[in-house]
């Protein structure tokens, strides 16, 4: 029987289950197959901070959302069209986010009395009217998998672990995706355990067949390859990996070898892991004893002539503060990556927030200016990382690169740069035979770098104030001079960064400013509203310290300027300080969850109404 194929422009699916159900793998596989079909896509995982919270409870629910489309998209989507719920807890935590009339595929095999009790439910939501208004597709996935694999020698527990691939098979049929890339992945992932690879492959195929054979779905869907992707070679990239690749690239473009000193912390750990696997790229990775040792070993690495890097998240950033000051006064290149999470203190370690901006710009003792750059999307993270390396090396300074948990674990198709087109990064390294004064500066106020091992350039640096010759100096005038020179050097970086270009037309009176990951939702919201007849301008800031030239002139054109941020208005405070004649308004959200385009549109519409 041939079923109807319905063409759709874009689809949002959320996979939700217990944190042991393999939802992240399911989502990842669906993303890879979707990228192969040529859709534009964006993904976002949502998982608890406990590795295995008590099974079946609401606290243990792990989710993965994917948005894929035949046109350009910028976010993992607002409300899912389809929710796959592997148990009652996953259903009850997620169903309210679904679109009106959306589809719920529920694994009824995990809706026993016991399962309901674990999710603190008195009655079965599949039967008690909770889901009125949604299309519910009940499938006893547990039973199906046990039947398919009844001849397998695997234990019952191991067989039930295949249920995520059964589910994936169903979804592949429903959205017309090929199975091949997942089959290849299973063969390589379980190369040493072929019986597990085989069981999962059987489950995948069986799920696909079930969806095709049974009358579970009215029809299947198709989302065409994206029309808007520019020609080129693409890969699906996750934010943390983009930063790791960017760090290796930045070092290479400067002709340097990287040295990463780090300490594991969610959600930044992956960057350390990715770089640790790049040993044949001559990357030194040191997993140090704590956050302080992480940055200090990186500073030592920079002093000795490598590109020092450290990676962390908010609480770790706080610990590194004193060493940041050391990197400022010794004027050594250093890239500090802060993958922000919700704070203060331990906060919500697996949830997103962008509340470390003020800490990044100001959070040190003394006058200690550090450039700050923020990335917007996983693909943008690569460019921002290379830019952070450029500023660090060309200006002999620590640079803070801000990412966040949303970018770190989100994916999107990344158009790969042409290697030969990547601009080289200049180094300013003293050579044997020249007279070397450690704090002698060029016209950009940048000092030269002299790593140990070069004859005749022996010198001392350190945390005490120095004069030009590198001698300790307590001279009041010298300290004032050096403080100004360090400040002016950082402000001089503005000469090398472009003025960001706002979208929108001349007549727009409302400017929306983004920084960091809200970029995607803000771009979606403003583009959609403009298509619907509104006139809103969007300006994205990548360089947050120092601010690029030309912003005052841009700001002056608008009646109202609104900054949506996942904090209590940190960029607004900075802009108000830097541009005192301009009035900036905040629209903040601090729930550990990203903005949706939907909520932004509603707010922007209110503002337009008021204007």
């Amino acid at each position, binding site marked *: 029987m041939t079923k109807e194929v319905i063409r759709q422009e874009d689809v949002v699916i959320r996979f939700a289950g217990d944190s042991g159900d393999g939802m992240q793998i399911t989502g990842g596989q669906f993303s890879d197959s979707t990228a192969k079909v040529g859709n534009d896509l964006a993904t976002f995982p949502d998982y608890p901070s406990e590795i295995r919270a008590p099974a079946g409870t609401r606290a243990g629910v792990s989710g993965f959302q994917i948005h894929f489309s035949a046109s350009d998209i910028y976010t993992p989507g607002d409300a899912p069209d389809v929710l796959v719920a592997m148990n009652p807890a996953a259903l009850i935590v997620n169903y309210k986010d679904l679109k009106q009339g959306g589809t719920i595929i529920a694994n009824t095999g995990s809706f026993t009395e016991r399962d309901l009790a674990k999710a603190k439910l008195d009655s079965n939501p599949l039967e008690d009217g909770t889901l009125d208004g949604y299309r519910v597709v009940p499938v006893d996935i547990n039973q199906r998998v046990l039947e398919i694999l009844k001849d397998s020698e695997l234990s019952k527990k191991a067989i039930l672990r295949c249920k995520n691939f059964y589910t994936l098979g169903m979804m592949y049929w429903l959205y017309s995706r090929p199975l091949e890339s997942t089959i290849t992945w299973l063969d390589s992932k379980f190369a040493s355990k072929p019986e597990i690879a085989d069981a999962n492959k059987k489950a995948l195929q069986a799920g696909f067949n079930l969806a095709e054979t049974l009358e579970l779905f009215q029809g299947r869907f198709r989302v065409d390859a994206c029309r808007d992707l520019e020609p080129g070679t693409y890969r699906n990239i996750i934010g943390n990996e983009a930063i790791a690749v960017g760090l290796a690239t930045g070092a290479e473009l400067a002709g340097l070898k990287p040295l990463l000193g780090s300490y594991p912390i969610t959600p930044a750990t992956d960057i350390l892991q990715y770089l640790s696997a790049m040993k044949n790229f001559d990357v030194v990775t040191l997993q140090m004893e704590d956050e302080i040792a992480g940055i200090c070993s990186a500073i030592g690495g920079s002093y000795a002539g490598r590109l020092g890097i450290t990676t962390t998240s908010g609480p770790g950033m706080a610990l590194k503060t004193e060493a940041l000051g050391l990197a400022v006064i010794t004027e050594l290149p250093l890239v500090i990556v802060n993958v922000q999470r919700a704070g203060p203190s331990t906060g919500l370690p697996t949830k997103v927030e962008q509340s470390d901006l003020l800490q990044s710009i100001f959070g040190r003792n003394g006058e200690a200016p550090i450039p700050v750059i923020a990335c917007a999307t996983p693909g943008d993270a690569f460019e921002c990382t290379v830019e952070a390396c450029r500023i660090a090396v060309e200006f002999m300074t620590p640079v803070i690169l801000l990412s966040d948990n949303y970018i770190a674990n989100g994916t999107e198709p990344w158009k790969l740069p042409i290697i030969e087109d990547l601009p080289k990064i200049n180094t300013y390294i003293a050579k044997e035979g020249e007279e070397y004064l450690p704090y002698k500066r060029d016209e950009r106020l940048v000092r030269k770098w002299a790593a140990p091992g070069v004859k005749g350039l022996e010198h001392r640096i350190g*945390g005490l104030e120095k004069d030009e010759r590198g001698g300790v100096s307590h001279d009041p005038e010298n300290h004032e001079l050096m403080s100004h020179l360090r400040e002016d050097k950082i402000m001089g970086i503005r000469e090398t960064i472009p003025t960001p270009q706002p979208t929108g037309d001349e007549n727009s009176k409302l400017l929306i400013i983004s920084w960091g990951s809200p970029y995607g939702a803000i771009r979606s919201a403003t583009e959609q509203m403009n298509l619907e007849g509104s006139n809103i301008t969007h300006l994205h800031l990548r360089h947050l310290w120092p601010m690029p030239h030309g912003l005052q002139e841009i700001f002056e054109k608008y009646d109202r300027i609104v900054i949506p941020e996942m904090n209590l208005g940190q960029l607004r405070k900075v802009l108000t300080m830097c541009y005192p004649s301009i009035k900036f308004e905040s629209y903040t959200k601090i729930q550990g969850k990203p903005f949706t385009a939907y909520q932004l549109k509603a707010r922007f519409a209110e503002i337009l109404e008021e204007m």
Partner: protein
Amino acid sequence: MSDLNVLKPKDLKSDQEVRWCPGCGDYAILNSVQKTLAGMGIPKENMVMVSGIGCSSRFPYYMDTYGFHSIHGRANAIATGVKSANPDLSVWIITGDGDGLSIGGNHMIHSLRRNVDLKIILFNNRIYGLTKGQYSPTTPIGTRTKTSPVGSVDRPFNPIQLALGAGASFVARTIDTKPKHMASVLEAAAAHKGSAFVEVLQNCVIFNDGAWDQWTSKANRDENTVELVDGQPMIYGKDKDKGISFDSCHANTVSADEASVWTLEHNSPVPAFVASQLDHMPGLPIPIGVMRANDEPVYDEDVHAQIAQEIEKNGKGTLKDIIYAGDTWVVK
């Protein structure tokens, strides 16, 4: 021959005026380090002195080598980065009982555990000098200082035992008033591959004068210290008539002809630990000399060996390899 062999101690003196208090034990250590390093055949440009904060940590400014005067307690972490970035360098850490054992205690034990090829000289004067006289993690119980006006109730570390417990592959002790002994210990440390931990009993003339006199003054040291020499019996006393014998994990004083032979020929830290227990046995001499020297895998060498092995196995990575990695597809 190259000019390496003609390096003189004065070649390692910087143009900076040395600003320790007159009579400070640090002067003797500076002279000894300059003498030792000049004679090691290490090119001057490969020497790096790294320090934290404290009186001792001004040391790098007085050496005409590469130097990094860093922040309090962090010298070991910074030096680990320096040595891992370039294993050809001879990296020395200058620290004190506060810098290295209190605020920097974590970095100290972890760099010893990893066996990074760093030469660590810990100036132990049992007091915070630069902040003008507060008790440190090596100050004995009952000591009156500015923050313990009726006597310290803080139980101190034994630095030798801390280093041994952290797995240090080389542990030694010397005293600021015995320059020849200090030179021999520093030479042994410099020759060791891996972390070398050297405790120097050092006098602070201003805030803790005479703290070590019982062991280090000319009048007392022969009776109250025992020099451990590899392959030699442990003999001490003005007349070399007394000895130390080890008897099932206890150290006892005996006559010189009954003294046990001290040997470094084992990979166990136990003998060194037994010897260091002498510190806690009133009436017995404290040990000085090389207490442990064992060949163990060296961290920075292994870091680079893995890199070399991966390059050998997979070829040197290029930008193309890391950017065009994984599943790619082409949009036309």
